[in-house]
């Protein structure tokens, strides 16, 4: 059986590494991107990466129910992040308007 050869490969391992990679990609993007809108995207990637890590920390394997506390934490994190995103985007819109008014 093909799957028997990789016994350690479990969902938490796979998604945990993927989450860390997403966080690192977001981090680099947030530090290096010039475009304002794209920096918001990068920060959002970081937050999803952190969410992956917490969800993985809650995982207990198929028969056992997961730990509910990290799930609650990630939901809180998602709401906090949409708030921060909305403020950042409002600043971007306002700044663009102010800059255009100055040019003309």
């Amino acid at each position: 059986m093909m799957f028997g050869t990789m016994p350690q490969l479990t969902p938490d391992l796979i998604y945990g590494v993927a989450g860390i990679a997403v966080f690192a990609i977001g981090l680099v993007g947030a530090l290096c991107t010039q475009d304002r809108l794209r920096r918001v995207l990068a920060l959002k990637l970081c937050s999803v990466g952190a969410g992956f890590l917490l969800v993985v920390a809650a995982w207990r394997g198929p028969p056992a129910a997961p730990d509910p506390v990290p799930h609650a934490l990630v939901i809180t994190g998602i709401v906090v992040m949409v708030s921060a995103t909305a403020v950042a985007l409002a600043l971007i819109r306002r700044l663009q308007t102010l800059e255009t008014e100055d040019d003309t």
Partner: protein
Amino acid sequence: MTDPVIIFDLLLAAAVVALAVASLSVRDLFVAIVLFITFGLLSALSWVRLAAPDVALAEAAIGTGVTGALLLKTLRHLRYVSGTLDRAEALSVTPAAPVPAPVIWANAAFCGLVTLGLAVAFLGAPRSGPGFDALVAEAMPASGVDHPVTAVLLNFRAYDTLMEVVVLLAAVIAVWQIERGLSDAPAPVLGAVWEGFARLTLPAIVVVGTYLLWKGAEAPGGAFQGGAVLAAVGLLLLLSRLYVPQPSHRGVARWAFVLGTGAFAGVALLVAGGGRVAFEYPPEHAKTLILLIEGLVTISIAVTLAALFHGREPVALRSDRGRA
């Protein structure tokens, strides 16, 4: 015996990482946002695989749904203000010099190093390690609800959740403060098809949102997911201009924004006044109190998210350019 779905997991994880890279590196900003929305969708699926349906719901509705709409709206606004709305490509609004290859490689190397370092730390940590499973299971009967995530959010760690609602309130106050009477980019008017669509969709969304809120006591769902789904109604009304915020609606909107915070903190304070610690709900009334808080918080979340999408405070505009 490994689960045969592991191939699916591997593919999904690879797609998530690839989409993260793509949404940051693709030239066209509109494509970047579409890729980002897809990224959010696949992240939500990953969390379903990790047995976290609550988190998946919240990410799909708030993290991807509302955030995606906000990003699209902002992009449209930027293109309108800079006069590039009719161009085929939505290029970066703040143009920068092309990035030289060594910089890209340096970034990739830094990214790889961070990933490697954190991955080593991750692999060294206990898998399915210590947690609150036992403590939560033990405290569940006194919590007033049957779904552990709801119990954590509204009872065991209610203080965190109150502050999360406060963050939403701070955001909407800040957004109203930042944007002053800006005019919106005019959008096409939706035609007759839309009316039939709206008649079918809007009631369905309201029903599903309320259902999620109610279901939250014993199954995945609850105030945040329900609120986000109800916020979708607000988004649709705003997008189709079936509802246009008027200056005279500001007072009601302010009350709606603070309703959740006020109810949550008010209940905490009332129980504290009754000789208990703040947030300590008497077990016999816990279910009622939690449902009351959740209901009011849901209204606040729905209205606040819709207001965050709308942006500016509805003040009387000097020119009526924005009201096409």
